[in-house]
């Protein structure tokens, strides 16, 4: 198994020891939803109540905390990175609760819904407009899941960030 896969497997074991069950978000969740692309982004949505426990556990695994706020945290360990978003608002808590569980080569893990993933990708882009990769991911997810997406939910995310016209452009 590759170092990357082993890193994820180790993180999943750490989460289990910490008594929390995060959901995969970010580039790897995009892969999980059938848009296979190169990425080493390891991103999880974690319940905010577990933030301190997970922080201590990651430091114990040799990660260094690059940044931590009430919304997010970044950790690095040599060439490996791991990012956390904290589910503390009702919307994120609901998405975390509704995440589906799947058996993967790295172990059993929970994965955010396609609609929720689009919402988080949009949030990432709104926060940093240089992250055009997020728009590419949204466009690909909209295309490949067009027949099954809950478009009302997707529209709510774009309305939340005052970007309804962006959704029209991505769908066009």
């Amino acid at each position: 198994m590759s170092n990357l896969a082993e890193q994820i497997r180790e993180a999943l074991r750490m989460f289990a020891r910490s008594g929390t069950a995060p959901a995969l978000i970010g580039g790897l969740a995009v892969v999980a939803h059938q848009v296979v692309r190169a990425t080493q982004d390891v991103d999880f949505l974690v319940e905010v109540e577990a933030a301190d426990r997970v922080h201590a556990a990651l430091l114990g695994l040799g990660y260094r905390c690059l940044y931590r706020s009430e919304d997010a945290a970044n950790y690095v360990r040599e060439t490996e990175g791991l990012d956390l978003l904290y589910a503390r608002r009702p919307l994120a808590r609901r998405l975390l609760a509704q995440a589906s569980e799947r058996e993967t080569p790295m172990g059993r893990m929970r994965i955010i819904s396609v609609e929720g993933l689009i919402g988080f990708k949009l949030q990432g882009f709104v926060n940093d407009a240089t992250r055009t990769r997020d728009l590419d991911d949204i466009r690909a997810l909209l295309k490949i899941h067009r027949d099954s997406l809950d478009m009302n939910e997707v529209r709510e995310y774009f309305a939340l960030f005052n970007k309804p016209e962006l959704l029209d452009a991505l769908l066009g």
Partner: protein
Amino acid sequence: MHSSGNTPASTQSGLDRANADAVLVREAGLPFRRERGKASGGDPFIEWLSLMEVVQMLCTVWPVRDKPIQGNQWRI
């Protein structure tokens, strides 16, 4: 162009001219897209791991985040 009466290839193969054109279009005109789930058992993670093996061979130093997550619009 006419084929000889001794070798009615299109008739023998069951292809009329319209079908033959369709084959040509399919082979040469449309982008190939492998049907998912046939080669790897349908697991996108397995496809991703295979992809990353090659990527890591070609790009041995992958960019690591050197700046924190930016922005102040956290609404989800």
